[in-house]
Protein backbone atom coordinates (compact mmCIF):
# COMPACT_ATOMS: atom_id res chain seq x y z
CA UNK A 1 0.00 0.00 0.00
CA UNK A 2 1.36 3.37 -0.96
CA UNK A 3 1.66 5.93 1.79
CA UNK A 4 -1.39 8.18 2.14
CA UNK A 5 -0.98 11.96 2.20
CA UNK A 6 -2.92 13.94 4.78
CA UNK A 7 -6.33 14.76 3.34
CA UNK A 8 -7.33 18.43 3.03
CA UNK A 9 -11.06 17.79 3.20
CA UNK A 10 -13.53 15.14 4.24
CA UNK A 11 -14.26 14.48 0.58
CA UNK A 12 -10.60 13.90 -0.16
CA UNK A 13 -10.31 11.59 2.87
CA UNK A 14 -13.00 9.34 1.49
CA UNK A 15 -11.64 9.66 -2.04
CA UNK A 16 -8.26 8.34 -0.93
CA UNK A 17 -9.87 5.30 0.65
CA UNK A 18 -12.89 4.58 -1.59
CA UNK A 19 -12.08 6.37 -4.84
CA UNK A 20 -15.40 8.15 -4.55
CA UNK A 21 -14.60 10.59 -7.34
CA UNK A 22 -13.79 7.75 -9.71
CA UNK A 23 -16.94 5.89 -8.73
CA UNK A 24 -19.06 9.03 -9.19
CA UNK A 25 -17.54 9.61 -12.62
CA UNK A 26 -18.16 6.05 -13.83
CA UNK A 27 -21.68 5.78 -12.42
CA UNK A 28 -22.88 9.35 -12.91
CA UNK A 29 -21.10 12.14 -14.77
CA UNK A 30 -19.54 9.91 -17.45
CA UNK A 31 -22.30 7.33 -17.77
CA UNK A 32 -23.64 8.21 -21.21
CA UNK A 33 -27.28 8.27 -22.25
CA UNK A 34 -28.48 9.18 -25.76
CA UNK A 35 -29.89 12.67 -26.11
CA UNK A 36 -32.61 11.74 -28.58
CA UNK A 37 -35.17 10.51 -26.07
CA UNK A 38 -38.55 11.59 -24.72
CA UNK A 39 -40.22 11.49 -21.32
CA UNK A 40 -41.01 7.78 -21.71
CA UNK A 41 -37.33 7.18 -20.96
CA UNK A 42 -37.96 8.50 -17.45
CA UNK A 43 -40.16 5.52 -16.52
CA UNK A 44 -37.18 3.58 -15.18
CA UNK A 45 -36.26 6.27 -12.68
CA UNK A 46 -39.96 6.65 -11.87
CA UNK A 47 -40.14 2.93 -11.10
CA UNK A 48 -37.13 3.22 -8.81
CA UNK A 49 -38.94 6.04 -7.05
CA UNK A 50 -42.16 4.01 -6.73
CA UNK A 51 -40.26 1.03 -5.39
CA UNK A 52 -38.62 3.25 -2.77
CA UNK A 53 -42.04 4.59 -1.74
CA UNK A 54 -43.38 1.06 -1.42
CA UNK A 55 -40.37 -0.08 0.57
CA UNK A 56 -40.52 2.83 3.02
CA UNK A 57 -44.28 2.70 3.56
CA UNK A 58 -44.04 -1.08 3.84
CA UNK A 59 -41.52 -0.77 6.66
CA UNK A 60 -43.92 1.44 8.62
CA UNK A 61 -46.88 -0.87 7.98
CA UNK A 62 -44.76 -3.75 9.23
CA UNK A 63 -44.58 -2.12 12.65
CA UNK A 64 -48.26 -2.73 13.37
CA UNK A 65 -49.33 -5.47 10.97
CA UNK A 66 -50.02 -8.90 12.50
CA UNK A 67 -49.79 -11.94 10.18
CA UNK A 68 -52.44 -14.08 11.87
CA UNK A 69 -55.86 -14.93 10.46
CA UNK A 70 -57.59 -13.72 13.62
CA UNK A 71 -55.72 -10.44 13.86
CA UNK A 72 -54.64 -9.45 10.35
CA UNK A 73 -57.86 -7.76 9.24
CA UNK A 74 -58.24 -5.65 12.37
CA UNK A 75 -54.55 -4.82 12.61
CA UNK A 76 -54.84 -3.26 9.15
CA UNK A 77 -58.31 -1.74 9.22
CA UNK A 78 -58.45 -0.70 12.85
CA UNK A 79 -54.93 -0.30 14.23
CA UNK A 80 -53.23 1.04 11.12
CA UNK A 81 -56.16 2.82 9.48
CA UNK A 82 -57.77 4.36 12.56
CA UNK A 83 -55.22 4.49 15.37
CA UNK A 84 -51.63 4.83 14.18
CA UNK A 85 -50.70 8.44 13.40
CA UNK A 86 -50.66 8.71 9.58
CA UNK A 87 -51.09 4.93 9.37
CA UNK A 88 -53.91 5.52 6.88
CA UNK A 89 -51.55 7.58 4.73
CA UNK A 90 -48.89 4.87 4.69
CA UNK A 91 -51.45 2.26 3.82
CA UNK A 92 -53.03 4.34 1.07
CA UNK A 93 -49.62 5.07 -0.45
CA UNK A 94 -48.70 1.39 -0.23
CA UNK A 95 -52.00 0.17 -1.66
CA UNK A 96 -52.28 2.74 -4.45
CA UNK A 97 -48.54 2.54 -5.11
CA UNK A 98 -48.78 -1.21 -5.65
CA UNK A 99 -51.39 -0.64 -8.31
CA UNK A 100 -49.75 2.37 -9.96
CA UNK A 101 -46.33 0.72 -10.08
CA UNK A 102 -47.84 -1.77 -12.53
CA UNK A 103 -49.17 1.04 -14.69
CA UNK A 104 -45.62 2.39 -14.96
CA UNK A 105 -44.20 -1.10 -15.52
CA UNK A 106 -46.60 -1.58 -18.42
CA UNK A 107 -45.76 1.84 -19.91
CA UNK A 108 -42.06 1.02 -19.51
CA UNK A 109 -42.54 -2.40 -21.11
CA UNK A 110 -44.58 -1.23 -24.06
CA UNK A 111 -42.21 1.68 -24.62
CA UNK A 112 -39.52 -0.97 -24.98
CA UNK A 113 -41.63 -2.96 -27.41
CA UNK A 114 -42.64 0.11 -29.41
CA UNK A 115 -39.08 1.39 -29.88
CA UNK A 116 -37.57 -2.08 -30.36
CA UNK A 117 -35.38 -1.80 -27.26
CA UNK A 118 -35.27 -5.59 -26.82
CA UNK A 119 -33.45 -6.28 -30.06
CA UNK A 120 -30.05 -7.68 -30.90
CA UNK A 121 -27.55 -6.81 -28.18
CA UNK A 122 -30.23 -5.73 -25.74
CA UNK A 123 -31.76 -9.15 -25.00
CA UNK A 124 -30.46 -9.20 -21.44
CA UNK A 125 -32.05 -5.82 -20.72
CA UNK A 126 -35.37 -7.25 -21.84
CA UNK A 127 -34.98 -10.51 -19.93
CA UNK A 128 -33.92 -8.86 -16.67
CA UNK A 129 -36.85 -6.48 -17.07
CA UNK A 130 -39.22 -9.41 -17.49
CA UNK A 131 -37.67 -10.98 -14.40
CA UNK A 132 -38.61 -7.81 -12.55
CA UNK A 133 -42.13 -8.00 -13.93
CA UNK A 134 -42.47 -11.56 -12.64
CA UNK A 135 -41.06 -10.75 -9.19
CA UNK A 136 -43.25 -7.64 -8.91
CA UNK A 137 -46.27 -9.74 -9.85
CA UNK A 138 -45.43 -12.23 -7.12
CA UNK A 139 -44.90 -9.36 -4.69
CA UNK A 140 -48.24 -7.82 -5.63
CA UNK A 141 -50.07 -11.13 -5.31
CA UNK A 142 -48.52 -12.06 -1.95
CA UNK A 143 -49.14 -8.58 -0.55
CA UNK A 144 -52.76 -8.59 -1.63
CA UNK A 145 -53.42 -11.50 0.74
CA UNK A 146 -52.15 -9.72 3.85
CA UNK A 147 -55.15 -7.47 4.72
CA UNK A 148 -57.16 -10.72 4.91
CA UNK A 149 -60.29 -9.33 3.35
CA UNK A 150 -62.72 -11.22 1.13
CA UNK A 151 -60.81 -10.41 -2.05
CA UNK A 152 -57.51 -11.29 -0.37
CA UNK A 153 -58.88 -14.68 0.50
CA UNK A 154 -60.67 -15.54 -2.70
CA UNK A 155 -58.03 -14.20 -5.06
CA UNK A 156 -55.50 -16.33 -3.15
CA UNK A 157 -57.84 -19.28 -3.31
CA UNK A 158 -58.54 -19.05 -7.02
CA UNK A 159 -54.93 -18.35 -8.02
CA UNK A 160 -53.42 -21.15 -5.92
CA UNK A 161 -56.13 -23.45 -7.29
CA UNK A 162 -54.69 -22.82 -10.77
CA UNK A 163 -51.69 -24.99 -9.86
CA UNK A 164 -54.12 -27.86 -9.36
CA UNK A 165 -54.37 -28.09 -13.14
CA UNK A 166 -50.76 -29.26 -13.47
CA UNK A 167 -50.84 -32.97 -14.37
CA UNK A 168 -50.14 -35.64 -11.73
CA UNK A 169 -48.81 -33.44 -8.91
CA UNK A 170 -51.42 -30.66 -9.15
CA UNK A 171 -53.62 -31.47 -6.15
CA UNK A 172 -50.70 -32.11 -3.82
CA UNK A 173 -48.89 -29.03 -5.07
CA UNK A 174 -51.84 -26.84 -4.15
CA UNK A 175 -51.88 -28.24 -0.61
CA UNK A 176 -48.11 -27.84 -0.39
CA UNK A 177 -48.27 -24.19 -1.45
CA UNK A 178 -51.08 -23.43 0.99
CA UNK A 179 -49.73 -25.52 3.82
CA UNK A 180 -53.31 -26.70 4.32
CA UNK A 181 -56.27 -27.98 2.36
CA UNK A 182 -57.52 -24.44 2.04
CA UNK A 183 -56.16 -20.91 2.35
CA UNK A 184 -55.44 -20.69 6.06
CA UNK A 185 -53.18 -19.30 8.72
CA UNK A 186 -50.22 -21.28 7.40
CA UNK A 187 -50.83 -19.75 3.97
CA UNK A 188 -51.02 -16.23 5.37
CA UNK A 189 -47.78 -16.46 7.34
CA UNK A 190 -45.78 -17.97 4.50
CA UNK A 191 -47.04 -15.37 2.05
CA UNK A 192 -46.19 -12.74 4.64
CA UNK A 193 -42.61 -14.03 4.70
CA UNK A 194 -42.48 -13.98 0.90
CA UNK A 195 -43.91 -10.48 0.72
CA UNK A 196 -41.70 -8.77 3.28
CA UNK A 197 -38.44 -10.64 2.89
CA UNK A 198 -37.72 -13.11 0.12
CA UNK A 199 -39.34 -11.40 -2.86
CA UNK A 200 -38.17 -7.87 -1.95
CA UNK A 201 -34.61 -9.20 -1.71
CA UNK A 202 -34.98 -10.83 -5.11
CA UNK A 203 -36.38 -7.57 -6.50
CA UNK A 204 -33.48 -5.53 -5.15
CA UNK A 205 -31.02 -7.93 -6.75
CA UNK A 206 -32.92 -7.90 -10.02
CA UNK A 207 -32.97 -4.08 -10.06
CA UNK A 208 -29.19 -3.92 -9.70
CA UNK A 209 -28.85 -6.53 -12.44
CA UNK A 210 -31.28 -4.64 -14.71
CA UNK A 211 -29.17 -1.47 -14.34
CA UNK A 212 -26.05 -3.44 -15.09
CA UNK A 213 -27.48 -4.94 -18.27
CA UNK A 214 -27.88 -1.40 -19.65
CA UNK A 215 -24.22 -0.66 -19.24
CA UNK A 216 -22.74 -2.27 -22.37
CA UNK A 217 -25.48 -2.21 -25.03
CA UNK A 218 -26.43 1.32 -23.85
CA UNK A 219 -29.92 2.74 -23.63
CA UNK A 220 -31.85 2.76 -26.91
CA UNK A 221 -32.95 6.07 -28.43
CA UNK A 222 -36.03 7.38 -30.17
CA UNK A 223 -34.90 6.47 -33.69
CA UNK A 224 -33.06 3.25 -32.88
CA UNK A 225 -29.86 4.90 -34.14
CA UNK A 226 -26.46 3.28 -33.57
CA UNK A 227 -23.50 5.60 -33.05
CA UNK A 228 -20.02 5.67 -31.59
CA UNK A 229 -20.39 6.45 -27.89
CA UNK A 230 -16.68 7.10 -27.49
CA UNK A 231 -16.60 9.77 -30.18
CA UNK A 232 -19.80 11.44 -28.97
CA UNK A 233 -18.75 11.43 -25.34
CA UNK A 234 -15.42 13.03 -26.22
CA UNK A 235 -17.33 15.76 -28.03
CA UNK A 236 -19.41 16.26 -24.88
CA UNK A 237 -16.38 16.38 -22.58
CA UNK A 238 -14.69 18.95 -24.83
CA UNK A 239 -17.64 21.24 -24.17
CA UNK A 240 -19.53 20.76 -27.41
CA UNK A 241 -22.59 19.51 -25.58
CA UNK A 242 -25.00 20.89 -28.15
CA UNK A 243 -23.64 18.76 -31.01
CA UNK A 244 -22.95 15.60 -29.03
CA UNK A 245 -25.47 12.80 -29.35
CA UNK A 246 -25.06 11.86 -25.70
CA UNK A 247 -25.85 13.39 -22.35
CA UNK A 248 -24.50 12.53 -18.93
CA UNK A 249 -26.58 10.46 -16.51
CA UNK A 250 -25.97 13.14 -13.92
CA UNK A 251 -27.09 15.86 -14.00
CA UNK A 252 -28.58 15.92 -17.53
CA UNK A 253 -30.65 12.76 -17.63
CA UNK A 254 -31.65 12.73 -13.98
CA UNK A 255 -32.76 16.37 -13.99
CA UNK A 256 -35.35 15.42 -16.59
CA UNK A 257 -36.27 12.29 -14.63
CA UNK A 258 -36.84 14.32 -11.49
CA UNK A 259 -39.08 16.68 -13.41
CA UNK A 260 -41.18 13.78 -14.68
CA UNK A 261 -41.24 12.19 -11.22
CA UNK A 262 -42.44 15.33 -9.45
CA UNK A 263 -45.17 15.94 -12.03
CA UNK A 264 -46.22 12.31 -11.73
CA UNK A 265 -46.29 12.58 -7.94
CA UNK A 266 -49.04 15.20 -8.18
CA UNK A 267 -51.18 12.68 -10.03
CA UNK A 268 -50.17 9.86 -7.69
CA UNK A 269 -51.02 11.70 -4.51
CA UNK A 270 -54.29 12.83 -6.01
CA UNK A 271 -55.14 9.12 -6.30
CA UNK A 272 -53.86 8.41 -2.79
CA UNK A 273 -56.14 11.03 -1.27
CA UNK A 274 -59.19 11.19 -3.48
CA UNK A 275 -59.52 8.14 -5.67
CA UNK A 276 -58.14 4.99 -4.07
CA UNK A 277 -61.04 2.56 -4.43
CA UNK A 278 -59.64 1.24 -7.71
CA UNK A 279 -56.55 0.00 -5.87
CA UNK A 280 -58.12 -0.83 -2.52
CA UNK A 281 -61.19 -2.75 -3.53
CA UNK A 282 -64.24 -2.07 -1.34
CA UNK A 283 -64.98 -5.82 -1.21
CA UNK A 284 -61.69 -6.27 0.63
CA UNK A 285 -63.04 -4.28 3.56
CA UNK A 286 -65.19 -7.32 4.36
CA UNK A 287 -63.26 -9.79 6.48
CA UNK A 288 -62.18 -13.03 4.79
CA UNK A 289 -64.79 -15.78 5.01
CA UNK A 290 -63.89 -19.14 3.52
CA UNK A 291 -67.51 -20.26 3.53
CA UNK A 292 -68.87 -17.38 1.47
CA UNK A 293 -67.70 -16.33 -1.99
CA UNK A 294 -68.21 -12.69 -3.00
CA UNK A 295 -70.68 -12.09 -5.85
CA UNK A 296 -67.85 -11.28 -8.24
CA UNK A 297 -64.25 -12.42 -7.97
CA UNK A 298 -61.65 -10.68 -10.07
CA UNK A 299 -57.95 -9.95 -9.67
CA UNK A 300 -56.47 -6.46 -9.53
CA UNK A 301 -56.61 -4.65 -12.87
CA UNK A 302 -53.02 -5.42 -13.84
CA UNK A 303 -53.66 -9.18 -13.84
CA UNK A 304 -56.98 -8.97 -15.69
CA UNK A 305 -55.59 -9.57 -19.18
CA UNK A 306 -53.87 -12.83 -18.26
CA UNK A 307 -56.83 -13.86 -16.08
CA UNK A 308 -59.08 -13.43 -19.10
CA UNK A 309 -56.75 -15.61 -21.19
CA UNK A 310 -57.08 -18.23 -18.44
CA UNK A 311 -60.86 -18.31 -18.45
CA UNK A 312 -61.35 -17.48 -22.14
CA UNK A 313 -61.46 -21.19 -22.98
CA UNK A 314 -64.71 -22.17 -21.37
CA UNK A 315 -65.53 -25.25 -23.42
CA UNK A 316 -63.74 -28.44 -24.46
CA UNK A 317 -61.95 -28.56 -27.80
CA UNK A 318 -60.88 -31.85 -29.37
CA UNK A 319 -61.28 -33.77 -26.16
CA UNK A 320 -59.13 -31.39 -24.10
CA UNK A 321 -61.03 -29.82 -21.24
CA UNK A 322 -61.65 -26.08 -21.23
CA UNK A 323 -59.81 -25.87 -17.93
CA UNK A 324 -56.64 -27.45 -19.32
CA UNK A 325 -56.78 -25.28 -22.44
CA UNK A 326 -57.16 -22.17 -20.32
CA UNK A 327 -54.24 -23.22 -18.17
CA UNK A 328 -52.05 -23.85 -21.20
CA UNK A 329 -53.00 -20.51 -22.74
CA UNK A 330 -52.29 -18.82 -19.39
CA UNK A 331 -48.85 -20.43 -19.18
CA UNK A 332 -48.18 -19.36 -22.77
CA UNK A 333 -49.20 -15.77 -22.00
CA UNK A 334 -46.88 -15.62 -18.98
CA UNK A 335 -43.85 -16.96 -20.83
CA UNK A 336 -44.24 -15.57 -24.32
CA UNK A 337 -43.25 -11.97 -23.60
CA UNK A 338 -39.86 -13.27 -22.44
CA UNK A 339 -39.19 -14.68 -25.88
CA UNK A 340 -39.99 -11.46 -27.72
CA UNK A 341 -36.35 -10.76 -28.76
CA UNK A 342 -36.32 -14.09 -30.60
CA UNK A 343 -39.84 -13.95 -31.99
CA UNK A 344 -39.17 -10.65 -33.73
CA UNK A 345 -37.16 -11.79 -36.78
CA UNK A 346 -36.87 -8.36 -38.36
CA UNK A 347 -33.50 -6.65 -37.85
CA UNK A 348 -35.11 -3.17 -37.96
CA UNK A 349 -34.54 -1.17 -34.78
CA UNK A 350 -37.10 1.57 -35.30
CA UNK A 351 -40.18 2.91 -33.58
CA UNK A 352 -43.13 0.66 -34.40
CA UNK A 353 -44.87 3.30 -36.51
CA UNK A 354 -41.88 3.36 -38.91
CA UNK A 355 -41.95 -0.40 -39.42
CA UNK A 356 -44.20 -1.51 -42.31
CA UNK A 357 -45.76 -4.58 -40.65
CA UNK A 358 -44.84 -4.46 -37.01
CA UNK A 359 -46.90 -1.26 -36.50
CA UNK A 360 -50.12 -3.14 -37.21
CA UNK A 361 -49.05 -5.98 -34.96
CA UNK A 362 -48.22 -3.60 -32.11
CA UNK A 363 -51.48 -1.66 -32.17
CA UNK A 364 -53.48 -4.84 -32.66
CA UNK A 365 -51.82 -6.28 -29.58
CA UNK A 366 -52.58 -3.14 -27.59
CA UNK A 367 -56.25 -3.23 -28.59
CA UNK A 368 -56.45 -6.94 -27.74
CA UNK A 369 -54.86 -6.41 -24.33
CA UNK A 370 -57.33 -3.60 -23.62
CA UNK A 371 -60.28 -5.83 -24.48
CA UNK A 372 -58.85 -8.69 -22.43
CA UNK A 373 -58.38 -6.35 -19.47
CA UNK A 374 -61.86 -4.89 -19.63
CA UNK A 375 -63.66 -8.19 -20.14
CA UNK A 376 -61.44 -9.83 -17.55
CA UNK A 377 -63.41 -8.00 -14.90
CA UNK A 378 -66.90 -8.57 -16.24
CA UNK A 379 -68.89 -11.69 -15.37
CA UNK A 380 -68.14 -14.24 -18.10
CA UNK A 381 -71.71 -14.99 -19.06
CA UNK A 382 -73.41 -15.04 -22.43
CA UNK A 383 -71.74 -12.91 -25.08
CA UNK A 384 -68.99 -11.79 -22.66
CA UNK A 385 -67.66 -15.35 -22.60
CA UNK A 386 -67.36 -15.34 -26.39
CA UNK A 387 -65.56 -12.01 -26.47
CA UNK A 388 -63.17 -13.48 -23.90
CA UNK A 389 -62.65 -16.52 -26.09
CA UNK A 390 -62.11 -14.49 -29.26
CA UNK A 391 -59.67 -12.08 -27.65
CA UNK A 392 -57.76 -14.92 -25.96
CA UNK A 393 -57.38 -16.71 -29.28
CA UNK A 394 -56.35 -13.42 -30.90
CA UNK A 395 -53.65 -13.04 -28.27
CA UNK A 396 -52.23 -16.48 -29.00
CA UNK A 397 -52.45 -15.99 -32.77
CA UNK A 398 -50.68 -12.62 -32.58
CA UNK A 399 -47.65 -14.16 -30.90
CA UNK A 400 -47.59 -17.27 -33.05
CA UNK A 401 -47.76 -15.08 -36.17
CA UNK A 402 -45.06 -12.66 -35.04
CA UNK A 403 -42.01 -14.58 -36.37
CA UNK A 404 -43.65 -14.97 -39.79
CA UNK A 405 -44.82 -11.37 -40.00
CA UNK A 406 -41.43 -9.99 -39.01
CA UNK A 407 -39.68 -12.31 -41.46
CA UNK A 408 -41.77 -10.74 -44.24
CA UNK A 409 -40.91 -7.33 -42.86
CA UNK A 410 -37.21 -8.19 -42.95
CA UNK A 411 -37.56 -9.02 -46.65
CA UNK A 412 -39.36 -5.77 -47.40
CA UNK A 413 -36.73 -3.79 -45.50
CA UNK A 414 -33.89 -5.70 -47.17
CA UNK A 415 -35.35 -5.11 -50.63
CA UNK A 416 -35.35 -1.33 -50.23
Amino acid at each position, binding site marked *: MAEFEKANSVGEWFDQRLNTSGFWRVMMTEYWIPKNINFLWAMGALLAMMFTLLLVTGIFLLMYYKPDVNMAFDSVNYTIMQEVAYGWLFRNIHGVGASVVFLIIYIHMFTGIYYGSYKKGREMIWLSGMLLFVTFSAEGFSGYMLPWGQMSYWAAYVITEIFGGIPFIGDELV*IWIRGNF*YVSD*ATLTRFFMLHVLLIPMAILGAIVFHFYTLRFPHVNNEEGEFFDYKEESEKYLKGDKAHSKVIAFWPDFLSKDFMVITIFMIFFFYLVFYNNDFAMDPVNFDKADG*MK*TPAHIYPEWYFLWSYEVLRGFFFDIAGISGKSLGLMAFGFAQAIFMLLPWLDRSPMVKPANQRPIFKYWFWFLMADLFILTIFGKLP*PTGANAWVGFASSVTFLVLFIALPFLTKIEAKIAGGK
Partner: protein
Amino acid sequence: MINESRRGFMGKAFGAVAAVGAVGSLVAMKKTWDPLPSVMAAGFTTVDVSKLSDNKLEIAKWQGKPIFLLRFAADMPAVEKRSVKVGEHYYSIMIGLCTHLGCIPAYRDATHDFKCACHGGEFTAAGVHTFGPPPRPLDIPPFSIKDENTIVLGEAGPEYKALIASLSTDSNIA
Protein backbone atom coordinates in the same frame (compact mmCIF):
# COMPACT_ATOMS: atom_id res chain seq x y z
CA MET B 1 0.91 -32.48 -14.15
CA ILE B 2 -0.07 -35.00 -11.53
CA ASN B 3 -0.56 -32.18 -9.12
CA GLU B 4 -2.72 -30.30 -11.57
CA SER B 5 -5.11 -33.15 -12.29
CA ARG B 6 -5.22 -34.07 -8.65
CA ARG B 7 -6.22 -30.52 -7.80
CA GLY B 8 -8.89 -30.74 -10.47
CA PHE B 9 -10.19 -34.00 -9.11
CA MET B 10 -10.27 -32.76 -5.51
CA GLY B 11 -12.10 -29.65 -6.67
CA LYS B 12 -14.76 -31.74 -8.35
CA ALA B 13 -15.00 -34.06 -5.36
CA PHE B 14 -15.49 -31.06 -3.07
CA GLY B 15 -18.17 -29.77 -5.40
CA ALA B 16 -19.95 -33.12 -5.39
CA VAL B 17 -19.98 -33.40 -1.60
CA ALA B 18 -21.23 -29.80 -1.34
CA ALA B 19 -23.98 -30.61 -3.85
CA VAL B 20 -25.15 -33.54 -1.70
CA GLY B 21 -25.46 -31.14 1.24
CA ALA B 22 -27.33 -28.60 -0.88
CA VAL B 23 -29.82 -31.18 -2.12
CA GLY B 24 -30.33 -32.43 1.43
CA SER B 25 -31.04 -28.88 2.60
CA LEU B 26 -33.55 -28.39 -0.22
CA VAL B 27 -35.40 -31.54 0.79
CA ALA B 28 -35.56 -30.29 4.37
CA MET B 29 -36.82 -26.90 3.17
CA LYS B 30 -39.48 -28.53 1.01
CA LYS B 31 -40.68 -30.44 4.06
CA THR B 32 -40.82 -27.29 6.13
CA TRP B 33 -43.42 -26.05 3.65
CA ASP B 34 -45.49 -29.23 3.95
CA PRO B 35 -48.79 -29.03 5.84
CA LEU B 36 -48.33 -29.81 9.53
CA PRO B 37 -49.22 -33.30 10.83
CA SER B 38 -52.09 -31.80 12.81
CA VAL B 39 -53.46 -30.32 9.60
CA MET B 40 -53.09 -33.56 7.67
CA ALA B 41 -54.81 -35.47 10.44
CA ALA B 42 -57.68 -32.96 10.46
CA GLY B 43 -60.40 -35.38 11.08
CA PHE B 44 -63.98 -36.10 10.52
CA THR B 45 -67.22 -34.18 10.55
CA THR B 46 -70.39 -35.80 11.80
CA VAL B 47 -73.63 -34.58 10.26
CA ASP B 48 -77.14 -35.12 11.54
CA VAL B 49 -79.28 -35.31 8.39
CA SER B 50 -82.58 -35.43 10.29
CA LYS B 51 -82.36 -31.63 10.58
CA LEU B 52 -82.44 -31.15 6.82
CA SER B 53 -85.60 -30.24 4.97
CA ASP B 54 -86.63 -30.85 1.36
CA ASN B 55 -84.98 -28.77 -1.36
CA LYS B 56 -83.15 -26.58 1.16
CA LEU B 57 -79.37 -26.53 0.97
CA GLU B 58 -77.38 -26.94 4.17
CA ILE B 59 -73.64 -26.41 4.24
CA ALA B 60 -71.39 -28.35 6.60
CA LYS B 61 -67.68 -27.75 7.03
CA TRP B 62 -65.11 -30.49 6.54
CA GLN B 63 -61.37 -29.91 6.25
CA GLY B 64 -62.09 -26.24 5.74
CA LYS B 65 -64.24 -27.05 2.74
CA PRO B 66 -67.95 -26.39 2.47
CA ILE B 67 -69.94 -29.60 2.05
CA PHE B 68 -73.31 -29.33 0.31
CA LEU B 69 -76.09 -31.39 1.86
CA LEU B 70 -79.32 -31.33 -0.06
CA ARG B 71 -82.36 -33.47 0.68
CA PHE B 72 -84.31 -34.19 -2.46
CA ALA B 73 -87.98 -33.30 -2.48
CA ALA B 74 -90.51 -35.82 -3.80
CA ASP B 75 -90.60 -34.10 -7.22
CA MET B 76 -86.82 -34.24 -7.62
CA PRO B 77 -85.74 -37.53 -9.22
CA ALA B 78 -82.77 -39.31 -7.66
CA VAL B 79 -79.75 -39.48 -9.95
CA GLU B 80 -78.06 -42.80 -10.43
CA LYS B 81 -74.46 -42.96 -9.22
CA ARG B 82 -74.68 -39.60 -7.47
CA SER B 83 -77.62 -39.51 -5.09
CA VAL B 84 -77.18 -41.16 -1.72
CA LYS B 85 -80.03 -42.80 0.15
CA VAL B 86 -79.92 -42.29 3.88
CA GLY B 87 -82.99 -43.56 5.73
CA GLU B 88 -86.11 -42.55 3.82
CA HIS B 89 -84.68 -39.82 1.62
CA TYR B 90 -82.27 -39.23 -1.20
CA TYR B 91 -79.48 -36.70 -0.66
CA SER B 92 -76.75 -34.93 -2.54
CA ILE B 93 -73.52 -34.99 -0.54
CA MET B 94 -70.92 -32.96 -2.41
CA ILE B 95 -67.92 -30.75 -1.88
CA GLY B 96 -69.40 -27.28 -2.41
CA LEU B 97 -66.56 -25.97 -4.54
CA CYS B 98 -66.95 -25.35 -8.22
CA THR B 99 -64.71 -27.80 -10.07
CA HIS B 100 -63.49 -24.95 -12.23
CA LEU B 101 -61.62 -22.74 -9.77
CA GLY B 102 -63.09 -23.47 -6.38
CA CYS B 103 -65.73 -20.83 -5.77
CA ILE B 104 -68.85 -21.78 -3.84
CA PRO B 105 -71.88 -22.07 -6.13
CA ALA B 106 -75.21 -20.81 -4.83
CA TYR B 107 -78.30 -23.04 -4.79
CA ARG B 108 -81.39 -21.80 -6.59
CA ASP B 109 -84.26 -23.70 -5.04
CA ALA B 110 -86.79 -22.54 -7.62
CA THR B 111 -84.90 -24.15 -10.53
CA HIS B 112 -83.24 -26.95 -8.51
CA ASP B 113 -79.74 -26.05 -9.66
CA PHE B 114 -76.46 -24.47 -8.60
CA LYS B 115 -74.98 -21.36 -10.17
CA CYS B 116 -71.37 -20.31 -9.63
CA ALA B 117 -70.96 -16.55 -9.44
CA CYS B 118 -67.30 -16.57 -10.45
CA HIS B 119 -67.32 -17.88 -13.98
CA GLY B 120 -70.92 -18.75 -14.57
CA GLY B 121 -70.74 -22.56 -14.18
CA GLU B 122 -74.02 -24.38 -13.54
CA PHE B 123 -74.75 -27.73 -11.89
CA THR B 124 -77.90 -29.76 -11.35
CA ALA B 125 -79.16 -30.51 -7.85
CA ALA B 126 -77.15 -33.74 -8.07
CA GLY B 127 -74.03 -31.76 -8.92
CA VAL B 128 -73.70 -32.62 -12.60
CA HIS B 129 -72.24 -29.73 -14.62
CA THR B 130 -74.55 -28.43 -17.30
CA PHE B 131 -73.03 -25.12 -18.41
CA GLY B 132 -69.83 -23.09 -18.38
CA PRO B 133 -66.21 -23.90 -17.61
CA PRO B 134 -66.49 -26.61 -14.89
CA PRO B 135 -64.76 -29.71 -16.28
CA ARG B 136 -66.55 -32.31 -14.13
CA PRO B 137 -69.42 -32.74 -11.68
CA LEU B 138 -69.03 -31.56 -8.11
CA ASP B 139 -66.73 -33.89 -6.16
CA ILE B 140 -68.14 -36.28 -3.60
CA PRO B 141 -66.28 -36.33 -0.28
CA PRO B 142 -65.51 -39.63 1.47
CA PHE B 143 -68.46 -40.39 3.75
CA SER B 144 -69.97 -43.25 5.64
CA ILE B 145 -73.53 -43.79 6.78
CA LYS B 146 -73.72 -44.57 10.50
CA ASP B 147 -77.49 -44.88 10.91
CA GLU B 148 -80.59 -43.43 9.29
CA ASN B 149 -79.81 -39.96 10.64
CA THR B 150 -76.05 -39.75 10.80
CA ILE B 151 -73.29 -39.58 8.26
CA VAL B 152 -69.59 -39.04 8.89
CA LEU B 153 -67.55 -37.04 6.40
CA GLY B 154 -63.92 -38.03 5.87
CA GLU B 155 -64.50 -41.74 6.44
CA ALA B 156 -64.88 -43.93 3.35
CA GLY B 157 -67.83 -46.23 4.03
CA PRO B 158 -69.13 -49.02 1.76
CA GLU B 159 -71.71 -46.73 0.12
CA TYR B 160 -69.00 -44.26 -0.80
CA LYS B 161 -66.73 -46.99 -2.16
CA ALA B 162 -69.56 -48.38 -4.25
CA LEU B 163 -70.27 -44.94 -5.63
CA ILE B 164 -66.65 -44.29 -6.56
CA ALA B 165 -66.31 -47.76 -8.10
CA SER B 166 -69.38 -47.19 -10.26
CA LEU B 167 -67.98 -43.82 -11.35
CA SER B 168 -64.64 -45.19 -12.47
CA THR B 169 -66.27 -47.85 -14.62
CA ASP B 170 -68.50 -45.29 -16.27
CA SER B 171 -66.63 -43.69 -19.15
CA ASN B 172 -69.28 -41.01 -19.61
CA ILE B 173 -68.52 -39.35 -16.33
CA ALA B 174 -64.78 -39.99 -16.09
